[in-house]
């Protein structure tokens, strides 16, 4: 359809531009004022093109602010937002459940639990692996519980996911309090509500790398997800190996969620609301929906995090509070819409 192709021609570059501008502008916002050109100068210095462009480096203090404090945090937010939105879109299509999202189905809390346990055991290198194991475990438990309750309906799956999610969250709190050092409350909050406040360039590498590799692979599965539109039988009749596709994609989602949550804690609702918002423009087909959800999710979380760190300055909110404030009403609306049928 020409509508779709002209949209896809413009929508992706536009969304990418919005993301780049969002990151640039978000870096300038904070307790100490920075200007956009200063961000550019710092970037040029670190990319080694400052001399070539005739730009002067920033003072060490201001450069540190851009490059060591704000940039890693904002880029981590962008990567996590992109990945979560993508995971949400894939899960919604694969389970044909408009309420599916890594947070609501318990993957995020499971990943948090895995991450916290490994941190406690003192092997931070295993962080993403443990978070992945936690995410897979939580998803398997949620689906098993939903199945044990009867036919796997969307609402039942979410209820089972919430139960697992609460259990994992309680376990996270318990583990942290048990091992409490000084700042247990803050730590519990940052795992359960999500936070990118302590993000470093390592976080950027892990979250960003996961999104680039796994996210790209997931974004290429549009045709397979399209085939699931009318259910499993229809997908099979279109030549899709239904069970294999479902497991490969769910494991991809769990891997990505694990990598993201290991760096940001469990941030809710990004995976739920972004795909729905993007579908209003793209329709239900995935070729455009998946990359556009990722780009929109990245910009969304950059701004949500900017709001979280500035709205009550100098106090900082966990970013999950901001996403929940926006996401919970959307969730309620989707429930209401689903129940009317």
């Amino acid at each position: 359809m020409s509508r779709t192709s002209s949209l896809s021609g413009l929508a992706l570059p536009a969304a990418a531009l919005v993301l780049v501008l969002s990151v640039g502008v978000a870096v300038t916002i904070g307790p100490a004022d920075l200007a956009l050109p200063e961000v550019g100068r710092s970037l040029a210095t670190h990319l080694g093109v400052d001399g070539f462009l005739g730009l002067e480096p920033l003072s060490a203090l201001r450069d540190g602010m851009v490059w060591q404090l704000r940039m890693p945090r904002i880029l981590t937010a962008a990567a996590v937002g992109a990945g979560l939105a993508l995971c949400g879109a894939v899960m919604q299509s694969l389970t044909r459940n408009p309420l599916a999202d890594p947070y609501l189905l318990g993957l995020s809390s499971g990943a948090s639990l895995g991450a916290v346990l490994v941190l406690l055991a003192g092997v931070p290198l295993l962080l993403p692996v443990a978070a992945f194991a936690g995410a897979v475990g939580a998803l398997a438990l949620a689906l098993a519980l939903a199945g044990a309750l009867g036919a796997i309906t969307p609402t039942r799956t979410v209820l089972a996911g919430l139960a697992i999610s609460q259990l994992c969250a309680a376990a996270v709190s318990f583990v942290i309090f048990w091992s409490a050092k000084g700042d247990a409350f803050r730590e519990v909050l940052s795992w359960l509500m999500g936070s990118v406040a302590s993000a470093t360039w390592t976080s950027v590498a892990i979250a960003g790398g996961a999104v680039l590799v796994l996210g790209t692979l997931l974004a290429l599965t549009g045709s397979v997800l399209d085939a699931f539109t009318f259910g499993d039988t229809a997908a099979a009749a279109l030549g899709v190996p239904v069970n294999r596709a479902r497991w490969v994609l769910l494991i991809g989602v769990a891997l990505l969620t694990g990598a993201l949550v290991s760096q940001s804690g469990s941030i809710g609702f990004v995976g739920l609301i972004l795909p729905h918002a993007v579908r209003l423009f793209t329709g239900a087909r995935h070729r455009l929906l998946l990359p556009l959800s990722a780009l929109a999710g990245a910009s969304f979380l950059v701004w949500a995090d900017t709001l979280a760190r500035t709205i009550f300055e100098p106090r900082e909110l966990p970013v999950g509070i901001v996403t929940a404030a926006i996401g919970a009403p959307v969730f309620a609306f989707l429930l209401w819409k689903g129940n009317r049928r």
Partner: protein
Amino acid sequence: MGEGAPTEQVPSTQRAGLAARRVSWEIDGRLILDGVAVLTPAGAVTGLLGPNGSGKSTLLRVLAGVQAAGRAVSPSGATSAAAEQSAAAPSATGPSASPASVSVSPTETTFGGADLGAMPRRERARVLALVEQDATTDLPLSVLDAVLLGRIPHRSLLAGDSDADRAAAHAALEAAGAKELADREVGTLSGGERQRVHMARALAQQPRLLLLDEPTNHLDIAAQLQAMRVLRDLAADGVTVVAALHDLNLAASTCDHLVLLDHGRVVAAGPVDDVLVPAVLEPVYGVRLDVLPHPRTGRPVLAFEQG
């Protein structure tokens, strides 16, 4: 295309249509299909008849290779004990032989002489299409996009819609009588309109074998006749059509060939006039019936009475 006169079509059994033998299927230990054999002429409309629970839907899905629940078993004719024995017995042909390949009589499904079971999925999806009952979606999907889904088996999984795909989708909409629905959203369609869209989606697959599960269910009489008209046109274009039908009179007026199922077994198969007779139908449906000639077409019309 001939004006609703399927008798003009000579269903030639020489031309190989769909041929299935020894189709047996078990769900939760219950035998749903018991050694079913189906032979449908190519380029004709075959009606699959039978009371509720006779196995029509399962048979269609097994033929399409998409039945998810249950498993293929040996027909009960070759007693299950014997099948188990042969499965359990150490195979002389080597450890790689699976129980299925050891069993006495594996299912065989061919179309036009090609083995459907051995065909790669995507290739099979280019040969045969399935129209399910009441498939729907909660997602905002335009009718054209829904029909374009039928192009998935025909292109690389990484490719978008090509102009050829769009042309095929529009042609399918036209053939299914759903041209004017192209820009509507699937969620807003009536039952009859949605059925036409599913038909168009199946036609966009450009199948040579079309399987339909009660394509006239929940449709008003005009929509029923319209749907059957589409099937007749397809058959005239050489597509082999197999449709599970509830309404015996609809089958009488539009099918070339009938297969009657009861309790998972074929109890009758053949041309319409051979199957739609009281001696065959009365024991299966438990009703009394009279067969009259249609005053204008001469095709059989059935009148029922409680048995």
